[in-house]
């Protein structure tokens, strides 16, 4: 049996285990391990598994995820976010879907300081989901908004994905970051349009609240100050160079503790609940990321991703078709495996092909980033969807995929726009 056949069987088994309700991270661990065992040897499989587990468990870069979740947990459990969302409700609650729109806007703001989609989804989800529930928002819409909003984390700079692409294609990190600002804003607007369109069609998804008086609006702002202060501190500290993006998670959590302590809202039981809540969601997210990595190692060793890439690069058809085929493969890759792992494997193969077709390097990099980040909300492996699931255990995971699915339309529109009007990115 060839290694490629084994890879395809592995994908099939993975799919079966997942739909038979084996936790997704466990499925990827087990199939990845069994695959390595088959293709290489038991010794090799154990070597990869133990090495990856230790190295990823003790990775400084990954530790930022629990820190962002902790920040969100503390400000949520101490009720600080409640006043923030109350204020937002007074201002936009009378609009259908206004609160979901608020979540998307807040995600965009958060994405401007955070380079990771799972961290953005984690931070926003912890704060927003319980509030949206209170305002009787449809769970598909609210979880979908958070999951899709989370993907803004890697489109709006800073972005870990753009960083990897820049390093691999020898482009300027700064230039890529600048180039993705406009697409990031466009996508945010398209997300807002998606929400308003949905709520126009199905008013019960994001019910309109009562109209507030001007006075009520002004009074509500008072409660916003603590959170605003924290936001200014975290964003300002980043731009001032007080701390690095990785450190901002810790400062966010620390600041949240200080603020809620000063307001007399933090006590021991709330702190321990925040810690346990953080533990639960971050363990879930990080095991997913690591299991995706082990599974990617299996696919890599069979060389399936390389074969697919070679095959596409060798197609004799018009350049736009090749480009679309490549983007299609990235969508598929993003659906099936760890997005970063897939980028690292495929960029050396696809990038020269796309350059040979005469496309702009910056434009392609940004497009790639957008396509890959859409993978975070496509089934079966959707990182931000899983993060949201961790924060909303009572919502079925397929409902979240469905809710996030509405936003894939926005993605499709954006990608089409960027292909038809490449100047949106390259004018810079």
């Amino acid at each position: 049996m060839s290694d490629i056949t084994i890879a395809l069987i592995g994908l099939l088994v993975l799919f079966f285990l997942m739909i038979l309700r084996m936790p997704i991270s466990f499925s990827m661990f087990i199939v990845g391990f069994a695959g390595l065992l088959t293709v290489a040897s038991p010794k090799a499989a154990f070597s990869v598994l133990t090495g990856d587990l230790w190295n990823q468990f003790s990775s400084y870069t990954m530790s930022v995820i629990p820190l962002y979740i902790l920040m969100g947990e503390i400000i949520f459990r101490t009720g600080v976010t409640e006043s923030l969302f109350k204020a937002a409700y007074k201002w936009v609650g009378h609009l259908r879907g206004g609160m979901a729109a608020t979540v998307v806007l807040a995600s965009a703001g958060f994405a401007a300081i955070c380079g990771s989609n799972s961290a953005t989804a984690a931070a926003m989800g912890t704060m927003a989901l319980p509030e949206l529930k209170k305002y009787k928002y449809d769970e598909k819409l609210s979880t979908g908004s958070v999951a899709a909003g989370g993907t803004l984390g890697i489109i709006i700079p800073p972005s870990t994905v753009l960083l990897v692409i820049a390093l691999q294609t020898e482009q300027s990190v700064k230039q890529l970051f600048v180039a993705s600002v406009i697409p990031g804003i466009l996508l945010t607007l398209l997300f807002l349009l998606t929400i308003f369109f949905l709520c126009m069609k199905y008013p019960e998804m994001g019910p309109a609240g009562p109209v507030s008086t001007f006075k009520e609006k002004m009074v509500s702002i008072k409660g916003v100050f603590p959170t605003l202060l924290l936001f200014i501190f975290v964003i300002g500290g980043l731009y001032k160079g007080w701390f690095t993006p990785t450190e901002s998670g810790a400062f966010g959590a620390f600041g949240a503790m200080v603020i809620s302590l000063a307001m007399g809202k933090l006590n021991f039981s709330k702190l321990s609940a925040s810690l346990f809540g953080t533990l639960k969601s971050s363990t879930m997210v990080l095991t997913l990321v690591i299991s995706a990595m082990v599974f990617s190692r299996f696919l890599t060793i069979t060389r399936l991703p390389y074969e697919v890439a070679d095959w596409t690069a060798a197609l004799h058809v018009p350049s736009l078709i090749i480009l679309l085929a490549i983007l299609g493969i990235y969508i598929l890759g993003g659906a099936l495996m760890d997005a970063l792992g897939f980028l690292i494997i495929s960029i050396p193969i696809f990038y020269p092909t796309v350059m040979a077709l005469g496309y702009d390097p910056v434009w392609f990099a940004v497009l790639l980033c957008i396509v890959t980040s859409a993978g975070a909300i496509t089934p079966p492996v959707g990182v931000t969807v899983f993060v949201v699931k961790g924060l909303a255990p009572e919502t079925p995971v397929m409902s979240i995929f469905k809710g996030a699915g509405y936003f894939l339309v926005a993605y499709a529109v954006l990608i089409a726009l960027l292909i038809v009007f490449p100047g949106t990115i390259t004018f810079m």
Partner: protein
Amino acid sequence: GGRSESGKAESDKPIKLTYAFFAPANTFPAKQMEKWKEEVEKRTNGKVQVELFPGGTLLTDKNMYDGVRDGVADIGLSCPTYEPGRFGLIGISDLPSGFPNSKVSSQVFYDLVREFPPDALKDYKIIAAFATEPAHLMTKKPVKSLDDLKGMQIRISGALTPVLRDLGATPVGMGMAEVPEALQTGIIDGLVSSREVLKDLKLAESLKYTTDYPLTVTSFIAVMNKDVWESLPPDVQKVIDELGPEMARWTGEYHDNHVQEALKWSAREYGLQVVTLSEEEKAKWDAKLKPLQDKLVKDLKAKGLPAEEYRNRLYELKDKYSRK
């Protein structure tokens, strides 16, 4: 990897070798892999086929050598010093020794590894060894003296910590990915590394000065799983053995050219300036750094390793290859 197909390979079926590395395909050690693949496949008339896995997709810097031992890949390329404590003597040649470039450091290192094979690699076949050019200070403000350097926050990686500390700078540890932003926001004032990063990571945008004083080198060793090596036919083994010293020279030259290109590009695009130390100042730096190597030699000698011999040979070889 290590899929033992190589063992029972028939004469008409190509022998497949998998070769892993932790850094991306566009870095110079990965170019070395490509060259090695090309040469091996050519010189064995296609009898051997090499599959490359750069970018840490199979094994990373943390588990490369263990992974080759366990048969995840047949060949693995890594930096021994990324796993400190495991490769005693190599630390000596990594510390500042005044190498002029990578061509010299690579050839010296290859010979040293042949003459003093690391105990930790005795169960492997060493197929390549080379080193970077010496790391240099790259800073936002010119560093002409130890006084200029005093208190500057400089990004370093592992082995450089004591070097920078002894020169009076404040070493900062952070991932390379965070460097561009940390430079922009002023969290760090510069970094120490081989100088191709000026162009490859576009760091010349903020780093306008580099001080012409050679610091540590980073050495690389590629090893093959011993069982796989023993399963190879003698003619293939011969080709691989012949390639060892050739690759050290080739890689050194390739890396040096790449660095020179990066320096020219940075000077042209961003006005990079090379700061030269006065003889008197240079002597001061030497005096600060020499004790580091002395101390390491003493410590390793106490552990029963031939550290003295290693260092003497290091300087002999350095002179030999510098003269050429």
